[in-house]
């Protein structure tokens, strides 16, 4: 099946989504919705206007910081737990339970510990993102095929060499998958955090727009976030697939 047809099909689905959007707008009117075309145009306008850039900057800054913490905490916990069977058995159900917990219920606690502002946003993003990274890192270590380690021993590798030349590349694909998921969840955490605890940033802009019934801004910013999340995920997915040697 040719690539062109595939891309064509994907564009068709995209068009279908936009058509549904237009239909919803026709049904709901200007009070509740905005039409796709003007919204997209406004989105470009926003991206070009210097007034908007501080908000993007704020969100990106919080996101970058939160991501660093997510990765460090996630890898730290995950690799530590994964190095022994017992610790992984003890820890995995706890991590899975934390994953299913609506972390927004912990939000008030975070706000009380960190106060309003950047650190609360970063903390909220980090608690969302580190869990899948930890789970995937842990499983990556547990699932190394023993025969690969045996092969390393038969080639007289030192323990450090076994870690760097066999364990590291063997766990990399799985860890990357975890980081990809953690990436998206960290963004989610940061944006939600901004909706409550901030006077700047994209989350704040959305909430502000809701309060002033500015559906166009609300939808435009939503589209911008959506596109950023989708594009970065697609890039990470490509990296993921390459590492897993999937076509």
């Amino acid at each position: 099946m040719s690539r062109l047809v595939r891309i064509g099909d994907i564009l068709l689905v995209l068009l279908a989504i936009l058509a549904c959007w237009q239909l919803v707008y026709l049904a709901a009117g200007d009070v509740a919705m905005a039409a796709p075309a003007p919204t997209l145009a406004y989105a470009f306008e926003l991206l070009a206007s210097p007034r908007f850039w501080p908000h993007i900057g704020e969100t990106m800054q919080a996101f970058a910081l939160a991501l660093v913490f997510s990765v460090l905490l996630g890898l730290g916990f995950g690799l530590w737990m994964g190095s022994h069977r017992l610790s992984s058995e003890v820890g995995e159900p706890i991590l899975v339970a934390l994953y299913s917990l609506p972390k927004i219920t912990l939000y008030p606690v975070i706000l009380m510990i960190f106060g309003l502002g950047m650190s609360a946003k970063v903390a909220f993003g980090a608690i969302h993102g580190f869990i899948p990274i930890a789970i995937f890192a842990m499983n990556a270590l547990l699932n190394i095929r023993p025969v690969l380690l045996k092969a390393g021993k038969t080639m007289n590798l030192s323990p450090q060499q076994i870690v760097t030349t066999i364990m590291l590349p063997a766990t990399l694909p799985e860890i990357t998958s975890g980081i990809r998921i953690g990436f998206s969840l960290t963004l989610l955490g940061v944006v939600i955090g901004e909706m409550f605890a901030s006077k700047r940033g994209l989350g704040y802009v959305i909430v502000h727009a809701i309060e002033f019934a500015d559906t166009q801004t609300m939808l435009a910013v939503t589209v911008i976030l959506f596109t950023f999340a989708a594009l970065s995920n697609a890039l990470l997915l490509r990296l993921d697939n390459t590492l897993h040697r999937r076509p």
Partner: protein
Amino acid sequence: MTVSAAAPEPHVCLSGIRQVYPATQGRAPLHALGPINLDLRQGEFFSVVGPSGCGKSTLLEIVAGLQPPTEGTATFEGRPVVGSVPEGIGVVFQEDASFPWLTVWDNAAFGVRRAGLAEAEVKRRVGHALSFMGLNDFTSAYPSQLSGGMRQRVCIARTLVMQPRLILLDEPFGALDAQTRLIMGDELLRIWRETGATVLLITHALDEAIMLSDRVGAMSFRPGRFLEVLETGWDRDRDSKIVSDPSFGAMTGRLWSHLRSESIDAINTLGQKAS
């Protein structure tokens, strides 16, 4: 003055080897292997045949130094094998041990690169091994793009590049179909002749063992012991066509007479899976 021709030192010496797994909850101590007493001659091809679960793989790992025996000693070139894998031993495992993140070339070069060999020498050895194993067209492919048989060849090439003096193979062709196995057997003989290494092959296939080896050891079910060690008497210059030799059938019959009841024991004991 008499000059007595000293008998050559055995390449590998196994004496009093036993492997006993200690008792766990709900299970008595498991006497898996032994006692095993065996000397491997320099440059010989020795196969171990036996039913599943008789301890053949354990024996191989003990010789390689991957597992310590509960009792007894194993020596390689006069020195005891203890704790780590001695230099000069190469192992080909039953499962695919190729590194999925490296190309065929890098896989083969892995061992010698880590040992610090000069790159020119690495190139020479790897090129020779890959060409010997018929992998010249696949040097930049990844294992995931290759069939099971090809991946096993990559693992064998990786072992050859290290220029081992003792090659241990644990059912290397288990995952392959019977005809491919016969062809791989021919290749193994080629490798054996070219390298002059001593080869210890573990297999459950009687025909493979008899066809390839100078000597075949028939191993009993637990605890694994040698019921008989057969001398095949083949020429060094043999290949798979030897299956048509008249003595082939007689030897197969001889081995089977030992192994048939052992195999039945194995099926009955191992048929019950752990809950």
